[in-house]
């Protein structure tokens, strides 16, 4: 360890204060702090600090994403082999999926991190770790056959417009990963919807077609999957959102570690369940009578509410606000699914919509506290003058 440390220190030398490469220090520091937690000590304020930092927080989210990602990779291969009637093993399916998905992840990280590093050097701050999560989320919510250049452009759009334009990490209003998806969805609709994009190679091999369950429902077709299949995730869909089971494992990791807000997740499930139930009672069409329990396990709802709605920057920030925000995401998700067949998956738009309203929710929650304080001041004033 010491030898490595010495090597690093000598590499870092030209990036030090007053040296000629000082401007690029954030870039080299990002790599250094990835290996070592730095030797910085407290200079002001509290003299001791908690072991938690943003890196640890973000890495925890990545760990929570892994089960869904691994299942997503497997499911990509599984859907392909099932449809082409080829006999296959778990490994075959996994390799097929990895062959498709790993390049997407690489493109997303390379494009996104280049922009992040560029802005860090330009603005003279350290590279924030937030993109480690965003960069993994973007491919996970795309259809498997989307061309890599589209992944790249969506990523660039999301990082530049949704994040850096607002001032970088911590300042953005919209969730960057969802912005990337929304961008692709509206810019390249043929690659993001229909029955030819959800299964690997569906566009080139005629034997393969695959509509998502919500897509079939919106088109008025029957659904041939059992609830167990929906829950387990062996259905067509965006890469890693299909398995409620493995998303649930991720949710558990997030809630137990306290990294994801249980208030938002619980609120979201509650809102969606109640809304689904109400539509069940109404039951005017196939989508309305689609059981509320199934609503919770199909499509991107579970993935969205667990990994996207809980993004602390774009969600509501007060505890009360988180409940309201979560519940509304759930309600709007089901509402968009049912009322708007053009967008069979409602969770993306529901979360983006609530991202926009989250500051308003917080404003009213905080205002409650302010009003209470002013009321106390005023009644004290009246006592004095009386």
């Amino acid at each position, binding site marked *: 360890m010491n030898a490595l440390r010495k090597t690093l220190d000598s590499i870092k030398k030209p990036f030090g204060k007053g040296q000629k490469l000082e401007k690029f220090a954030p870039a080299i520091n990002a790599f250094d702090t990835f290996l070592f*937690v730095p030797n910085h000590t407290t200079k002001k304020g509290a003299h001791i600090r908690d*072991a*938690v930092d943003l890196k*640890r927080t973000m890495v925890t989210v990545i760990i929570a994403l892994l089960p869904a990602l691994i299942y997503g990779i497997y499911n990509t291969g599984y859907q392909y082999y099932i449809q082409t009637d080829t006999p296959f093993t778990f490994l075959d399916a996994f390799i097929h999926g990895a062959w498709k998905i790993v390049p997407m992840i690489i493109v997303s990280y390379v494009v996104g991190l280049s922009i992040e590093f560029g802005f860090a050097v330009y603005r003279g701050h350290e590279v924030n770790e937030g993109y480690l999560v965003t960069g993994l989320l973007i491919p996970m919510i795309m259809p498997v056959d989307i061309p890599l250049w589209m992944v790249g452009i969506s990523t660039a759009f999301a990082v530049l417009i949704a994040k850096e334009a607002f001032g970088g990490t911590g300042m953005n209003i919209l969730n960057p990963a969802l912005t990337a998806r929304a961008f692709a969805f509206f810019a390249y609709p043929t690659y993001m919807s229909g029955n030819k994009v959800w299964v690997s190679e569906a566009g080139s091999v005629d034997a393969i077609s695959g509509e998502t369950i919500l897509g079939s429902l919106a088109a008025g077709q029957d659904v041939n999957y059992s609830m167990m299949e929906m829950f387990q995730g062996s259905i067509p869909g965006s890469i890693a959102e299909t398995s409620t089971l493995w998303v649930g494992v991720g949710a558990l990791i997030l809630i137990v*570690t*306290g990294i994801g*807000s249980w208030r938002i997740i619980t609120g979201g499930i509650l809102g969606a369940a109640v809304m689904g139930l109400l539509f069940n009672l109404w039951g005017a069409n196939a989508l309305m009578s689609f059981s509320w329990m199934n609503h919770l396990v199909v499509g991107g709802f579970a993935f969205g509410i667990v990994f996207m709605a809980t993004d602390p920057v774009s969600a509501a920030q007060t505890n009360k606000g988180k409940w309201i925000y979560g519940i509304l995401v759930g309600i709007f998700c089901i509402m968009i699914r049912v009322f708007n067949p053009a967008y069979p998956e409602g969770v993306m738009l529901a979360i983006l919509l609530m991202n926009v309203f989250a500051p308003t929710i917080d404003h009213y929650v905080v205002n409650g506290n302010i009003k209470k304080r002013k009321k106390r001041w005023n009644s004290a004033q009246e006592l004095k003058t009386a």
Partner: protein
Amino acid sequence: MEIIKKIHTQRGAKLNIKGGADKIFGNALPSPTFSINPDDFFGSIPKLLKKEGEKIAAGESLFFSKNDPQIKFVSPVSGVVQTIQRGARRKIEKIIIAADGTDESVTHKVENWEKLDREGLKSLLLESGNWPFIHQRPYGTLANPTDTPKAIFVSTFKTCPLSPDYSFILNDERESFQAGIDVLNSMVDQKVFLGTDASFAGMFGDIKDVQHYTIAGPHPAGNLSLHIQELAPLNMGDRVWTVNPEDVVNIGRFMNSGKFSSSRTVAVTGNAIEKAHYIRTRLGAEIQPILDYFTPKSSQFRVINGDVLTGTSVSEAGHLGYYNNQLTVIPEGNTYRMFGWLPFKDNNILSLSNTSFSRLFNKSGFEVNTNLNGEERALVVTGEMEKVFPLDVYPMQLIKACLIEDIEKMEALGIYEVVPEDFGLIDYANTSKLEAQEIIREGIELMINEVG
């Protein structure tokens, strides 16, 4: 005795740190010099009355406050003004007095002080240098002698890490404490609020003419901001005064003897020294003679005037602060940790987050050091500040209001109800390594300058 309120809070955290002081008194070696550090008096600017080389008696005025010339600061010992240390823009940083070992001191007429009226008592305290023992809220500055406060608070229960135990420190000082309380009582329209720990240890239950309340819960339950919010919430324009328990005794002693009392009992704590215990000395004493009694366990350590969350670091050649009853010595943490950001790695570092097993495994106490355990980042994680902040104030929103210097918003969000120390745990716990206390202190300075 009647308890008017039992304050109980869940929000906060007890940091289980090694190095608490054993309940024994050691006597520090005599201190050759004493120092008054004007930075200890937040919001006051000193105007000197003595020059370098002049003789000074104990209790004789050394300087007064430019903001309020009535407030005088006196020398804790008799001796010679040795050095006046100045920093940038000739700001006075330290006034060092070489003690001459005699007991020569200024004596004030205090007979029948009970018969003095409010104004008479105030001028006696101002003249004798006892006034700086009284602080005010909002802002935590020295009290303004022209005010009549809404209430006076004395809390004998501290919850900060390795906090000193006042029931132990002041066990033999009942009479002086009562006298101090009587003085304070005559300056306010309702009796002094006296806070004690829920188990009611020591002699504080026997103190008369006070409103007793108890406190229970993890840090920062012992912070006065919480007690004030519960018992006498600060409205705009309100003033509340606060006095440290040992300074109540100092005021009481003065009233009984006529001589300025500069006692300071200090819990010397921290995991960088062995056999932590209490010592009796005077305010402003040298730190080195105190440390000589303790064997340092590591070669590089940091001495802190106060506790690990809110104290200020001081060199070994430095002096005790004016107010702190605690000196903490912890090892420096300027080392690297490989892959230290992995969740559930390095569980020997105390963490309030569930991304570490630390709280499950280590029940006997943690070794701490000064490593930042990360780097400063943008504010991302939400909800973690509220968990360690028991006041009815939105901490992150207030911090942001201070950052953008929006005075109206700061007022509305409760800047009058907080002092920087309330944000000590937030400094400790927040993921982004934000310097919350610093931000709040700057916010309060802004309020003092703009609103007053």
